[in-house]
């Protein structure tokens, strides 16, 4: 049974197969047995599943909370109804308008997503879901108000064979495509982009793309699929009324994903089956209690099985089946791999030049009363390692953020590789060839180890420029694709992040306390790696580090910061003798 288990438990391929089989069976079986009630019910159930699948993508992959997918669904359905029933448009024409309406509403969600995220969007979308049916009633001149719209599409209900109709085939196709699309999206650049932006927007910026764009794209994709489902709602149900698109519908979609298991392909299917079929079919007499049911089931699932039903099953499988292992990301190993790969393509690293690669000019940054950077200037020469040292709160990380563009200076100027980056969005700065690592490594446990590296190459200047690295890593590809980094020890997570920056193929590396938490031996290895990056790969490195010994050994130049100001700058030997620096570090060489 190889291939059934992926890094997460049940592999995506297995879940996809099972999911599509369920979708087909749930439509085909009632059709063949000729039971119109069940046939109708499962047409609707599968449309809801399609919406929930996209909600799942939005929530689990893009990390976006939307309580308003029911409104997107309803906007498409109502537009079809208005265009075709009240204005006499043909169904396909009306369908196109419906899809446009859904995309328009999706864009309304995407717009604020450029700037804010999380619960802010939760409230925006919840408001829309609440307002939508109110508007349907208010504009009764256009929507027929509470009387609703009747619209049948007989052509779609002609029996083809075995009781199946064109409509059943469309529903099967849409829902299966949504599921397959979700599975496929995860393997694409955009899918990885969404997942990174969801977990760490600043990592996205450092990797060279805008997390806001990734979030907005997710909303638009979700609106597209949800709109198609809304378009099919009209022929499936044949009647539209504002009460069908109440805020509860949106909450139902959201809870279905949670109950089934967010991020799992089978999650939305199981969630919709449980939340829709159980109260609406099995407990028809208790239909008034449906809402309480939604609430209680979601609450209990969240408390007892936070990963949802499918997620909990998967976790059990995974615990039983996962083989322990390590990723052997060692310093020696990285050097061997990069050397082997590099030898085939480019002979040696760049020659140190004289013009500064990174230049910061009189930078000033204040947070309220606190001055984080006070007139700081810095010039870093190509092909050198430049150390930034100083006590806690002296402004080292702020300076790194200013260089990478994550923090805007109040005054002063930053230029990288000859280009003024002072006002450039951080992801654009990254695209110039600036890679960085973070104090807490941004290694993504939801991605495989291989994908964690791939995201580096995804947004580099030229994706093929990192081909040599991936070619050199060919031997471990299979294993790294199947492993998640959650078991990696701290030092290996840092090295993985460094390896990713190498995959970005950038000229300038900004490393924020890369040696924190490493053992003395690992530190020595790490110093070797830094020299190797400079000497062999020709990188320019700016290193923020608390381990002064490490900095003294590898840095070509050192800048000492205190209270946001530069107090000394020069070669390590000169810095050591500087009385001001000695005073700062006396008795605490590893401050």
């Amino acid at each position, binding site marked *: 049974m190889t291939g059934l288990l992926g890094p997460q438990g049940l592999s995506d391929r297995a879940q996809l197969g099972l999911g599509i089989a369920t979708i087909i069976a749930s439509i085909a079986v009632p059709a063949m047995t000729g039971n119109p009630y069940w046939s109708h019910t499962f047409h609707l159930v599968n449309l809801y599943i399609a919406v929930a699948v996209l909600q799942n993508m939005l929530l689990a992959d893009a990390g976006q909370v939307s309580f308003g997918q029911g409104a997107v669904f309803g906007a498409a359905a109502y537009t079809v109804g208005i265009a075709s029933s009240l204005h006499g448009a043909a169904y396909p024409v009306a369908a196109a308008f419906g899809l446009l309406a859904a995309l328009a509403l999706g864009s309304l969600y995407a717009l604020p997503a450029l700037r804010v995220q999380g619960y802010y969007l939760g409230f925006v979308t919840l408001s829309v879901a609440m307002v939508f049916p109110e508007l349907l009633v208010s504009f009764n001149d256009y929507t027929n108000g509470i009387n609703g719209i009747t619209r049948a599409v007989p052509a779609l209900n002609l029996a083809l064979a075995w009781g199946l109709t064109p409509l059943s085939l469309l529903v099967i196709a849409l829902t299966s495509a949504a599921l397959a699309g979700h599975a496929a999206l995860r393997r694409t650049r955009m899918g990885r982009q969404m997942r990174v932006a969801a977990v760490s927007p600043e990592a996205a910026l450092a990797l060279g793309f805008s997390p806001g764009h990734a979030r907005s794209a997710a909303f638009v994709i979700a609106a597209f699929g949800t709109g198609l489902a809304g378009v099919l709602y009209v022929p499936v149900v044949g009647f539209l009324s504002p009460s069908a698109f109440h805020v509860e519908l949106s909450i139902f979609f959201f809870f279905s994903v949670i109950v089934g298991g967010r991020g799992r392909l089978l999650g939305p299917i199981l969630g919709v089956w449980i939340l829709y079929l159980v109260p609406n079919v099995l407990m028809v007499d208790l239909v008034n209690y449906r809402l309480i049911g939604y609430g209680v089931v979601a609450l209990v699932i969240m*408390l007892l099985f936070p990963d949802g039903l499918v997620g909990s099953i998967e976790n059990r499988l995974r615990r039983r089946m996962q083989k322990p292992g390590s990723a052997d990301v060692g310093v020696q190993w990285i050097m061997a791999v990069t050397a082997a790969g590099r030898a085939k393509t480019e002979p040696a690293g760049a020659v140190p030049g004289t013009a500064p690669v990174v230049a910061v000019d009189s930078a000033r940054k204040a947070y309220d009363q606190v001055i984080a950077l006070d007139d700081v200037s810095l010039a870093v020469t190509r092909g050198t390692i430049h150390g930034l040292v100083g006590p806690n709160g002296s402004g080292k990380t702020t300076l790194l953020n200013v260089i990478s563009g994550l923090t805007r200076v109040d005054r002063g100027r930053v230029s990288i590789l000859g280009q003024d980056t002072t006002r450039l969005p951080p992801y654009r700065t990254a695209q110039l060839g600036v890679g960085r690592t973070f*104090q807490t490594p941004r290694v993504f446990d939801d991605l495989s180890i291989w994908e964690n590296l791939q995201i580096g190459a995804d947004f580099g200047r030229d994706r093929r420029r990192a081909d040599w690295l991936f070619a050199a890593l060919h031997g471990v590809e299979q294993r790294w694709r199947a492993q998640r980094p959650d078991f990696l020890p701290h030092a290996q997570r840092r090295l993985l992040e460094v390896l990713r920056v190498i995959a970005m193929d950038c000229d300038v590396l900004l490393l924020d306390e890369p040696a924190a938490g490493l053992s003395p031996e690992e530190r020595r290895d790490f110093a070797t790696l830094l020299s190797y990056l400079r000497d062999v790969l020709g990188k320019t490195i700016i290193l923020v580090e608390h381990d002064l010994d490490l900095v003294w050994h590898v840095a070509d130049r050192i800048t000492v910061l205190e209270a946001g100001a530069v107090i000394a700058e020069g070669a390590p030997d000169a810095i050591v003798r500087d009385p001001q620096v000695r005073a700062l570090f006396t008795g605490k060489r590893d401050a």
Partner: protein
Amino acid sequence: MDELIIILVRGIGLGAVFSLVAMSFNVVHNSSGILNFAQGNLLVLGGLFGFFTLPQEPELVRWLLLVPTAAVFYAAVLAAQGYITLLPLRSSVEQHSWLITTLAVSVIISAVILIAQGPFALSVKSPFANFALLGTRTPTPYALAVLLAVAWYAALHWFHTGTVTGLAISAIAQDLEAAQAAGIRVRRLQILAFAISGAIVGSAGFVAAPVMSISADSGIIYVLNGFIAAVIGGLGSNAGALIGGPLVGVASMYAAFQFGGQFQNVVSLALLIGVLMVRPQGLFGRTRARRV
């Protein structure tokens, strides 16, 4: 002219209720980063408390005694909800479970009100007569809501700056890990924050009951408007909430007057999107140092 005065006076009164919801948001948000979606329905429950405890002709003494009773009762209810909400955060890596658990609680409360009371709004009598203001007859609960909002603002200000417990909660707001390291019993204080937010919305719902819509589907309206007030003022800032509420209230009243009641929520939504696009940190919010 009269219409404008009515819009202004009642808008500010209604806005004070939004301010109170916003402040109750802030208390919890500052201590745990959680925004309680159920807060609007708890406000409605505060009104429901009035419906069940106040007779047709309520006397003043009884009313005065019931205000703190409502506060204490809902403080207890919210402490329980807080306990449940914080439960999954203890062990799991799932840090956003609160979005779901608080929404679930909100949905449950709505559903229970719907089943128990039906879809109609309930009315509660006020022990106070209307009062004259700028030539208009204004229901007293509007004024009381404003007074209550100012009183809670002052109380919260004193609590956060003048008491050890309040300072500890402020410390959690600034740096959770540092607060934990300093030996602050974070979980206990977070539940206390939930309880305080319950006292705020419980008393607010009770006091404003005669001018509120007490029904199964109005909780969500209050929670959204309260959130918008909090966002306009800057999430976490009680002074901002005090200003933001009346702004939302007046805009909402004006929309009702100009376009009709069914457009009140549309205007609130437009306000929310506008603020988020232009100034997501709100009027009084501060930009913080980026943590990487």
